[in-house]
């Protein structure tokens, strides 16, 4: 990023011992990922089999992955960004291509994901699709006589103080759809301004902008809120486990979809553990592992078919390509990302 200066040379010499740490020692694999993506329930067997030691650092948002990469990501081997930021990560040069000839089940991945533009550049693939899901909506069963079916419920004064919204630029997507703008990933400045307007109006109704999965769970369990958006499959299960009945739904205005994939951090392709790990994650072991832990749908329906019960297979829409196609899959925002993020910040600032 910067030119070599004498100062840099001196400092580098001084600190090389302490900070010249290689990405990983032999037989170690360092992940920057979401919780559940390297859960012991399926990683332990992999470690035992291969002798590779897996250590994971967990992030709270996709942007945090970029931030960590920008802050010197050389200490990680693999990352799992969502489909809206994969392109940025590729263009920033944080990752190197995935050799798909070494991915055994590559052909089994949903073609929609495999052929996604966001994960390719100059004819090379840079990501291995892993999981997917919807940013669905959710309500507390005992709080609504007539189940809500539209985003309007989140903007309804009757629900004042009972609403939670994800503290993310996704809030802009929600407001834009509520405003009737369906091109949520290519909003014009005016459309964004209108979304901001809508969100500011909504703000007094909002109990809390939730930022983490657990927080939303606590909000429901603590009786703070009745309706919110949610990472489909994940939080509702946790809430149900606490004995509170909630229902997820895709509103009339549709919902966003997301897809996480594994990417190889620049310089880590040579790690002997990398490809065995990727192959494990795309196999039944990894796919059902993550589906069981996080409740997300997975990218390899063939593996899913083999390891899931029929019930789970259906519940996760693994049998239903139309469901997937209907979702507004996250798109890279490119240099418009700043506009979205700042718009969301300005809602919270005012």
């Amino acid at each position: 990023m910067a030119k070599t200066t004498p100062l840099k040379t001196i400092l580098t010499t001084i600190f090389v011992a302490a900070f010249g740490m290689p990405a990983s020692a032999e037989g170690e694999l360092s992940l920057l990922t979401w919780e559940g993506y390297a859960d012991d329930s399926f990683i332990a067997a992999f470690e035992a089999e291969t002798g590779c030691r897996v250590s994971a650092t967990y992030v709270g948002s996709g942007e945090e992955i970029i931030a960590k990469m920008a802050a010197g990501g050389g200490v990680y081997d693999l990352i799992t960004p969502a489909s809206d930021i994969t392109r940025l990560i590729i263009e920033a040069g944080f990752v190197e291509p995935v050799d798909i000839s070494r991915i055994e089940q590559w052909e089994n991945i949903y073609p929609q994901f495999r052929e996604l533009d966001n994960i390719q550049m100059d004819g090379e693939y840079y990501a291995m699709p892993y999981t997917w899901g919807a940013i669905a909506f959710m309500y507390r069963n005992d709080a609504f006589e007539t189940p809500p079916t539209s985003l309007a419920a989140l903007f309804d004064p009757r629900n004042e103080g009972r609403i939670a919204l994800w503290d993310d630029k996704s809030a802009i997507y929600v407001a834009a759809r509520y405003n009737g703008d369906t091109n949520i990933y290519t909003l014009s400045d005016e459309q964004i301004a209108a979304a901001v307007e809508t969100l500011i109006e909504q703000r007094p109704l909002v109990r809390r902008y939730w930022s983490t999965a657990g927080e939303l769970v606590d909000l429901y369990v603590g009786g703070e809120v009745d309706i919110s958006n949610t990472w489909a499959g994940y939080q509702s299960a946790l809430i149900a486990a606490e004995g509170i009945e909630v229902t997820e739904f895709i509103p009339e205005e549709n919902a966003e979809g997301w897809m996480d994939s594994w990417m190889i951090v620049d310089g880590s392709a040579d790690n002997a553990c990398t490809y065995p790990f990727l192959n494990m994650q795309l196999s039944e072991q990894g796919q059902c592992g993550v589906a069981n832990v996080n409740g997300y749908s997975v990218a390899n329906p063939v593996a899913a078919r083999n390891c899931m019960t029929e019930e789970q297979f259906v519940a996760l829409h693994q049998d239903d390509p139309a469901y997937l196609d209907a979702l507004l899959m996250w798109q890279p925002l490119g240099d418009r990302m700043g506009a979205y993020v700042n718009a969301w910040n300005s809602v919270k600032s005012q």
Partner: protein
Amino acid sequence: MTLRALDRIGMGFFLGLPILWIVLFMLVPYGVLLTYSFWIKSYPLFEPAFQFGNYLTLLNEPQYLSVIGRTLKIAVIVSVTALVLAYPFAYFLVFRLKNVTIRKVLFFGVIAPLWVSYLLRAYLWKTILGTQGVLNSTLMGLGIISEPLDIFLYSQAAMVITLTYIFIPFMVMPIYAALEKIPRNLDEASADLGQSSWTTFWRVTVPLSLPGVVAGFTLTFCLCFGDFVAAFLVGGPDGLMVANVITSQFGAALNWPLGSALAVVMLVVVLAIISLSDRFEQRTKVQF
């Protein structure tokens, strides 16, 4: 003063490492921070440049000024609240408690929570203030309210309570130290001159303890000004603080230059507050 050769060697010995450290890990990083603040955001990351765009953005987009204003407001409220809570306590310890051991124990009792994880202490307020939290259930149990109130949590008030709670020790410590330094005979002299204890308090004790008050206020204010955990844990939809915006610029918005510019602003504000309080302290300082 003439320095002997030996003293000069000693000075080099004592000064060398600290100066090296200050230059390497404070001055250079602050310089880098300043440099970054003139860079420009450029997809996918950012590029070296020299332009004032980031600062203009901070000035022109109302959201930044309003966040800075809100942060200042909360920091002032917290500092004042902490002062009002801490002063009588410190006064009680120093002037009313005769038993030195009990005084020491109580003083330690107030600063000991510093040793309990900051994050946990902040988090605990969520448990207390929540709709089904300790406060609501206590109030309901006492029959004061019939329905749980949701006004406690996820609001600026919740942030003020939490931050005050966290920073009270920082207020008690310097005030206690300042009060302890006031010679007892002044108090007695004033009483001897026929002043009521109330007048003595306002005319003698308060002015002499001002340096401690200023120190505590400054520290609390600055720490509050830079806090980003309270908003994260107990803040409501209107709880964003400057530090949260900075964090988001380094994370979600991926605009390090703008984040750096905001951090520079924060640095300047803190420096201004410190030199202001320094000046005030110089004026109120009394030698005994």
